[in-house]
């Protein structure tokens, strides 16, 4: 998905959910400028090993969500996205191994009936800004991404709602992993 100028007009939406028994599920949805799905990737559920828990400590979820799940998902996508939006702060660590901006938006938690919840990550310092009325953040070390994201949004989707696609991802994860439906 690219514009006539060759620049990508696709946006990636990446989420990670934690099932109490099965572990972490990742989903990556690439949308075109009007929100139609281009591709969707999801991971099989993964659990952190004991060694990982010990060795990564507080940074475990950054590692699992950002460097493992998010990295795997983004690497599988065929449509290059001009930036990635996530509703899990731990996924921001993807930016350290990914060339495109990664921004975080806080989305209200899913209904209590859902068996998949957001991972409970460690508080991290974020640098916030606004794009298309969405309050989003980046890691402070990548503050330069702000203007890049704002330009992309202005160019391809000035009315986009960043939070909406995460509802789709959550439902798609449940469709793809029926075993996770039962809490």
């Amino acid at each position, binding site marked *: 998905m690219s514009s006539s100028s060759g620049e990508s007009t696709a946006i990636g939406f990446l989420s990670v959910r934690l099932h109490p028994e099965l572990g972490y599920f990742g989903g990556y949805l690439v949308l075109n400028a009007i*929100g*139609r799905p281009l591709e969707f990737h999801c991971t099989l559920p993964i659990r952190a090993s004991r060694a990982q828990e010990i060795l990564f400590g507080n940074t475990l979820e950054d590692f699992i969500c950002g460097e493992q799940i998010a990295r795997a998902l983004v690497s599988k996508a065929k449509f290059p996205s001009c930036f990635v939006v996530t509703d899990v702060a731990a996924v921001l660590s993807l930016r350290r191994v990914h060339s495109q901006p990664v921004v975080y938006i806080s989305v209200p938690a899913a209904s209590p009936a859902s068996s998949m919840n957001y991972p409970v990550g460690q508080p991290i310092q974020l640098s916030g800004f606004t794009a298309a009325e969405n309050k989003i953040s980046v890691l402070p070390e990548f503050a330069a991404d702000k203007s890049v994201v704002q330009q992309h949004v202005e160019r391809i989707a000035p009315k986009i709602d960043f939070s909406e696609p995460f509802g789709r991802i959550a439902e798609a994860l449940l469709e*793809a992993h029926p075993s996770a439906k039962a809490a």
Partner: protein
Amino acid sequence: MDRFATTDKQPSSVVQDSTVTEFQSWPVESVDVQPYALGWQSQLERSLKIETLKIETLADDAVREKFEIIVVPVQLANKLPKTIGFAFAEVPEIAPVAPPPAKKQATDKLEPAAEPNSDSSEKPEAKHFTRIRPPSDLVKLEDRLFFVLQPPLESLLSNAQLTFPFRPFPYQFEGVAFLFPRLAAILADEMGLGKTMQAITTIRMLLMSGEIRNVLLICPKPLVTNWVREFKLWAPEIPVAVIEGDQALRNYIWQSPAAPVKIANYELLMRDRQTVESDMKFDLVVLDEAQRIKNRSSTTAQIVCNINRTRSWALTGTPIENSSEDLVSIFEFLSPGYLKDDMHLKSMSQACRDYILRRTKDKVLTEMPPKLFRDAELDLNPDQKISYKAAEEEGVVQLSEMGEELTIQHVFELVLRLKQICNFDPLTGSSCKFERLEADLEEVAASGKKAIVFSQWVKTLDRMTDKLQRFCPLQYHGRIPSHKRDDVLKRFKEDPKCHVILMSYGAGAVGLNLQFCHYVFLFDRWWNPAIEDQAINRAHRLGVTGPVTVTRMMTVDTIEQRIHNVLEEKRELLTTLFAEASKPRNLGLSQKEIFGLFNLNLPRAEAA
């Protein structure tokens, strides 16, 4: 302090009996400890021996030489999780449509958030998302995800700049989301909730997203113009062709690819059966008022079932008019053999759950003005009484004398004769109902309102027309030619002098939008409560601007009251039909009940 002197002995052993231990490799000169003597602890008098411990680390060459070092590698980052991927074909974007010229609609007062979505530069205040959910019979994960991952209807329509004359209600979006992914579906919303709009919007979206290319819509003949009008309103950019004219013209229209939507009426299908059942193929066939095929052995039902198609939708406010067999017949069109007559009702209810969407006004339109029922129980005028008594006595005697020759037709004939006397006395024209109607209409006219009067007989409507001239009555029934009907409705709506329209149940009960009327009179009663409901809902529907008063006229101690009592019981059962597992087998009047109206026993021949 010498009691707490430490030694600097190396190598150290494990420190015992000590409360203070320093794990460091350099000697400790002394530890300044101030004990808190309690007096009863003699142990405190004894010198405390504290030893320091030196930890030997791998940094020391000597230690490395002494121990064999085992290194256990832990794989941390190289192996990424396994993924599953799905790619979706890029469907054409829904083409932006220029907004239609703004025009005042008589029905817009009740519509929520009246502003068209095309010019809304602001984000919606309340984030209510209506998502398309895959039907349960869709098995392939990729197909299911295709629907799950579609944007919510609100944003899909907003982004594509599709315009609506009014912003649809949330439940209407849900109806669209229900129909969109389904190959077989029944939209069974109560009359007046906008089934037409939901069907048109879904057709519009399917056409513009390239999911379908040609649609056949079949409806009762009187509703063809209504559908054309609704298409112009809700999907002005979609060309619609009405199948009409002589055989040659009809053949041309059937074959013409110019209009993606073709509208035909049920009656016409009989004449064009050969054409329809030939090699024509439709991506979608929609049956409006699908209860028309409740008799599956009818020619109409057979023809529609033979149409070659991919998607099949049925629209009806009364999927079950008489018995569950009506529903089985509709399913013969949707998915032949899926339901069976002998299925237990509970199983049937479960089996069709995913195929039927039914909402009632009281559930989804909590803000809608109420529908007020008045049962006008009237005594027959003296003339009517004499005629009625004579006819009833004579009729019952005749029926009783018929014995085994008695059939349901004979009973019907008597019922009809008595009902007609209840309307007007055949000799004098006297009518208690008409007197009441006339008085009520005075009030309706004085308040500048409009009323609909329903009757089973055109002859009754004719009689009323003559006597109601001061209210400028209009007629709408089977004898009014189709091409004149729209003009009648238009005049009724626009002419302030016209306060009443006289309608037959047959012509006026379905598909008409008369929400500007605040009064409905049922001059005589229909056999089936569902038909009466449909008639009432011509006025009590979306866009109605005030309460609708329904006056059900009924003469006491007559056949009308007996029918009324039976129908009221049936109506109660109808309302629970979709909710209850144990449902009645038959909701109309059974033969036994019809015979019972005159305390007659069912003859053996009829019983068989």
